[in-house]
């Protein structure tokens, strides 16, 4: 039994934590929150130089070839530091999609730029306030030209390439497929939209006969497989954020005196912190199982990913809202950093689809496993 990260992976975590404490402190995160800057370009460039962006990309495609466990380690630290970069869009979704379904030619032509950070990728799936299901997709492709509207697209305003989910033709019952669209090319209009978490950008993309290139042959099942992979990585970010919110709450409660003693000594606070700890540890344990399934391409990936995602979403939600509560009035001010975690928690919880849908997806995966 070896169900922990190894010494090298732990060393990578320590290095990443130190680097991000130095380069992505709250002041840096706030620059993206408070200005028009969509992401921290300097940080992004350094992620490329250090080989983080290409951690799971094989060396033949310009990556550092470390592996997915190493990418999980990095993801947790990015979550702790709230790093204001398009990491999830470009790496968890873009690079994973290309590695999962790209042709040899596509991998060779696209992955090297993703690994250096020269190109940013995103996934364009949602079409407004309704569930993104195969039936609901109206964006369509005919003769290699894609048309339709996607909203919101995380990092869609800054990305160079998008993987767009669209139907092959506009006939009833047409099946969805995945298409690569050059966002700097013809037929693409993009606008930034305001969101709950301005430390990450969201966009509306309108396509009018934009040239589109097919990615893989499978369509919707492929999309779900890519989402499973991204869900594990994002769950590590969520656990990192949840643990940081818990640590903030603990530190504040230890130093904040009321009625003659630290509030951390009152059971109402102690027990809530214990609950944060319980939820975070359960989520972390589920994430480890997800990491194992991701790194070994196990048949359990669908179950493991949904399990990690559901518990990490729950843990981050609880820790980030109760962190504000334990801080009292100060926790509700712009000045304190509690809201940065609260915002990010909501962002990540919605980014791959709602908790309701992931729970449903988990039960579906269990039904399939049971039937097999």
């Amino acid at each position: 039994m070896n169900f922990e990260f190894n010494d090298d992976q732990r060393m990578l975590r320590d290095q990443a934590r130190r680097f991000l404490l130095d380069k992505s402190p709250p002041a840096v995160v706030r620059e993206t929150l408070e200005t028009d800057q969509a992401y921290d370009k300097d940080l992004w460039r350094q992620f490329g130089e250090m080989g983080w962006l290409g951690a799971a990309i094989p060396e033949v495609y310009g990556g550092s070839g470390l592996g997915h466990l190493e990418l999980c380690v990095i993801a947790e630290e990015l979550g702790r530091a709230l790093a204001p970069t398009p990491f999830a869009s470009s790496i968890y979704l873009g690079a994973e999609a290309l590695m999962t379904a790209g042709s040899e030619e596509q991998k060779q032509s696209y992955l090297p730029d993703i690994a250096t950070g020269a190109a940013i990728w995103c996934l364009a799936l949602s079409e407004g306030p309704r569930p993104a299901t195969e039936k609901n997709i109206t964006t369509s492709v005919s003769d290699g030209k894609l048309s339709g509207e996607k909203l919101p697209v995380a990092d869609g305003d800054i990305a160079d390439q998008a993987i767009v989910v669209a139907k092959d033709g506009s006939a009833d019952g047409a099946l969805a497929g995945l298409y690569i669209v050059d966002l700097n090319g013809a037929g693409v209009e993009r606008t930034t939209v305001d969101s709950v978490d301005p430390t990450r950008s969201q966009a509306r993309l309108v396509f009018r006969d934009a040239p589109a290139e097919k990615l893989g042959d499978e369509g919707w099942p492929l999309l779900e497989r890519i989402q499973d992979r991204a869900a594990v990585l994002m769950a590590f970010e969520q656990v990192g954020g949840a643990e940081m919110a818990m640590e903030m709450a603990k530190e504040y409660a230890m130093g904040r005196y009321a009625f003659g003693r630290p509030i951390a000594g009152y059971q109402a606070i102690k027990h809530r912190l214990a609950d944060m700890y319980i939820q975070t540890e359960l989520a972390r344990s589920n994430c480890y199982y997800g990491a194992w399934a991701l790194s070994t391409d196990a048949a359990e990936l669908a179950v493991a990913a949904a399990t990690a995602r559901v518990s990490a979403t729950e843990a981050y939600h609880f820790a980030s809202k109760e962190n504000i509560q334990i801080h009292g009035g100060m926790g509700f001010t712009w000045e304190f950093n509690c809201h940065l975690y609260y915002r990010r928690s909501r962002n990540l919880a919605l980014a791959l689809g709602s908790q309701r849908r992931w729970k449903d997806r988990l039960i579906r995966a269990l039904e399939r496993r049971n039937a097999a």
Partner: protein
Amino acid sequence: MDFADTQDETAFREKARGFLAENAENKANAKRTNGTGWNKDEALAAAQLWQAKKFDAGFAGLTMPTEYGGQGLSPIMQVIYHQEEADYVTPRGVYEIGLGMCIPTMFAYATEAQKQRFAKPALRGEEIWCQLFSEPAGGSDLAGLRTRAERDRNADDADWVINGQKIWTSGAQFSDYAILVARSDFDVPKHKGLTFFFLSMKSPGIEIRPIKQVSGAANFNEVYFTDVRIPDSQRLGAVGEGWKVSLTTLMNERFAVGIAPAPDFEEVFDLVRNTELEDGPALDNALVRDRLADWYVRQQGLRNAHFRTMTALSKGGTPGPESSINKVVSAVKYQDISFFGTDMQEMAGIITDPEIAAMDGLFQTGVLSSPGYRIAGGTDEILRSIIAERVLGLPQDVRLDKEGAFRDLPTGQD
């Protein structure tokens, strides 16, 4: 990351599997039973037979020293054995307190001759032990106990005389020996006036009364002491240091008190798959799916935390946080699943008759048994305080009982 055993672990797992396959009934083939009923004579006899079999095959006292009849193995082997045994119907429970808590305390504090005398019969299941700790005035606040231990005369080796009452003593009715903590000095601060003993449960002056629980079973007892004599040679630890000895026992309790019983996710999933609601199969109902997902991720969280603990143990480390969160999560889940399972049966959910109720009344039994799991071995609240103080390092609660003589502390009884 991988789930592979080491070579030694593989060999041991194979050996355990072989033993279990030959000597016990696999759960997959067994009929589900309703409750343990381990106070019945035949259940006790079955438990003794099983323990003796385990001992003879080398599966009792896995982590205990070989010179006292144990196997001298590392804790990881204990975990592996438990994993394998979990697939079989075995009469467990009777020996968990004795081997999990009492004998380890004996190892830490008894004389060499006493260890030689008591370890092996306990391991073979010939002698059953119980733990006399909790009292009406000392539950969560264990150190508030008031059972008196007085010296008969002042000689160094004089007998002790015990008077008072213990409560919630599991298995007292069939135990041969017990460990006991009592108050030997009422004039010093609370934690400094306790002394620790072991004694025969057949000693004159002991009276045992079963406590009928909400579930109708009687696993616990009240134990009354009237001038019960204990030789000084059966004192464990120094006079006045009983609290320190108790902590050794309680440290072991954190590992002995396990996960709550079925119904867990598998059983409720099973029920749901066989239930038809007003608008179709229960498994198609969104609310039902939402709840199922909640329980699955909790169950898996505990299972995966357990893998992390195993990893630590396998490398010779100490268990992680799992031991403190296990019960707090699984006891509430047990209760919630039981309620939900009766809800699934609509108005008929009230019926306990195993001939009528779904799955032999498993969920109805859970409704009536689960409140006890949230209390026994540390309440939900005490366990949260333990996590807060020992894992997160938060300050202790305000205490009004640390200074002054124990006899002057308010009791609310005046």
